[in-house]
């Protein structure tokens, strides 16, 4: 049979698993990625992006998991640290960027500097790409995929799609507590009344971060070491048909990640009804839903899907 050349097949939409943003012990990491290997996920981002003191795995340990996932048919990407402060962090970054086997997600311009000219890196969501001019510049340096900053809306994404000349893949943060800020200060240590330099790795106590409530008892934010996240879970399962998105990122949480992947996959392949999926997924959130950013609203708002 000759292929039908009159219709251009748009590439299949894919699911990715973001890097684990929390501090989990080694055994938990290993069993988590064994589960991931069996899952329907297409792309897996690996590595420590929040705090360089977290060392359940060293670079070699991550590379072992990367090999295992590659053998399981996954596309593996190494994610780089978002906030670079120490000389040792730059040294680690250099090793990651120099690796010959896996593509790298650049989460800081220091990584872009090291990756520039090498084809195929991923421009991470913390790079502050807000317009097509910036995106094309990164494309000219070798970026092949862009993870949109979480505060940008579907309307902005659409503006990008209309103006873009390069064939950059676009990925959105489709599930998880939103990464909102990074700091020199460790809030987990602060709230345990410990100095950062002697944090006693208390992030291990909170596999989904430490909840921060307002004085009216609203679950508001999550403290995750030097990172601040939303307490609410960003969920874009209803947007799986959006023609502007190529890849939907699921950010790992300590419980139910396998089930979340399955629901997204089943919706993507038409095996599950999306309205039903919304209900199922809400029951798997640590606190509750939000999706305001996607509709150009305050990020914390939810239920804007009719906008």
């Amino acid at each position, binding site marked *: 049979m000759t292929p039908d050349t009159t219709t251009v097949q748009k590439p299949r939409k894919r699911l990715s698993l973001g890097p684990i943003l929390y501090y989990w012990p080694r055994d938990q990491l290993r069993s988590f990625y064994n589960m991931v290997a069996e899952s329907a996920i297409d792309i897996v981002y690996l590595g420590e992006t929040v705090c360089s003191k977290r060392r359940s795995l060293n670079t070699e340990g991550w590379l072992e998991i990367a090999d295992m996932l590659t053998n399981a048919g996954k596309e593996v990407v190494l994610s780089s640290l978002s906030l670079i402060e120490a000389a040792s962090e730059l040294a680690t970054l250099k090793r990651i960027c120099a690796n010959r086997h896996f593509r790298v997600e650049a989460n800081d311009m220091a990584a*872009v500097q*090291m990756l520039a000219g090498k084809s195929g890196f991923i421009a991470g969501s913390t790079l502050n790409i807000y317009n*097509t001019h910036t995106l094309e510049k990164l494309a000219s340096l070798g970026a092949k995929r862009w993870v949109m900053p979480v505060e940008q809306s579907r309307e902005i994404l659409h503006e990008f799609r209309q103006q873009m000349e390069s064939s950059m893949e676009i990925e959105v943060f489709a599930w998880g507590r939103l990464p909102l800020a990074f700091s*020199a200060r460790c809030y987990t240590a602060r709230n345990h009344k410990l100095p950062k330099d002697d944090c006693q790795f208390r992030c291990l106590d909170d596999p989904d971060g*430490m909840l921060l*409530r307002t004085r009216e008892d609203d679950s508001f934010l999550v403290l995750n070491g030097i990172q601040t996240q939303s307490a609410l879970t960003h969920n874009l399962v209803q947007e799986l048909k959006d023609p502007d998105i190529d890849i939907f990122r699921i950010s790992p949480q300590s419980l139910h990640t396998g089930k979340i992947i399955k629901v997204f996959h089943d919706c993507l392949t038409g095996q599950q009804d999306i309205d039903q999926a919304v209900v199922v997924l809400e029951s798997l959130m640590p606190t509750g839903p939000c999706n305001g950013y996607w509709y150009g609203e*305050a990020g914390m708002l939810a239920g804007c899907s009719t906008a």
Partner: protein
Amino acid sequence: MKLVCPAGNLPSLKAAVDNGADAVYIGFRDSTSARHFAGLNFTHKQIEKGLQYARDQKVKVFVAINTYPYPSDFAHWQRAVDMAAGLDVDALILADIGVMDYACERWPELNLHLSVQSSSTSHEAIRFYAEQFGIRRAVIPRVLSLKQVARLIEHSPVPIEVFGFGSLCVMVEGRCFLSSYVTGQGPNNFGACSPASFVRWQETDRGLETRLNEVLIDQVGKDENAGYPTVCKGRFEVMGKTSYAIEAPTSLNTLPILPELLRIGAAAIKIEGRQRSPAYVKQVTRIMREAIDACKADPDHFTPKQEWMTQLAALSEGMQTTLGAYERTWQ
């Protein structure tokens, strides 16, 4: 070590010039700059006047175009760059890669500074902007310890400007979505943190409440000062305890480490506060000028005068100051 001072209007610019600034940084009256507040910043005509005033006293003027334009707004940022270039200002302070790319292609002679909003915390990140766009100075985020700043200066391809005094961003600048998470508008996409239109102060039985888009940020008793409700300086409950879980209202003050900043080769010290009054600009500029001069004259025996510290504390958030991330124990 040069002194770079803020000005949100012409009287502030004059106050900075008259009190010893080496350079003044300003912005246009729109969302192209990171202090986008009603009634603040400069029209074209005001910049012309300010430039004249500063030039007469050999003070430089920098224009900050340091927010991130969306695709449909890009032309507006281009026009801002063109306007600043036409005014022949001494430097443009830029954050967005696209805007920088445009500025260096269109106006190759323009002196470009890398804004703190670009979140550049390492010499490798700074090298990127130096190689790609020829930036000639970088302003670094308030996240590095003094030792890390020293190392960065040692390896940086361009001179480094550090923050010396003012309201303290505790998050890496350019990567903080706390304001936009609560209001939809933040420093990157709107040019302001916690825009005033979302702020509500309300007297209640429990005390004065401060809210940002209805989220309770703080609640203060009669004998306490209520700070401006930025998310990072609110009081919240974590593990059953209510406290300033992120940071208390406080400002950065580097006078105690001025000799070290001089010794490690900081090219310039920046004062925060384009949104503050001419009186603030006048007082902070005067104190910092005196302090820098005293420090340069005799760095080994420099100690900040008590009156400087007291006066600066009075101008600070929560009436208190900190060395912030420069000091490892703060982190």
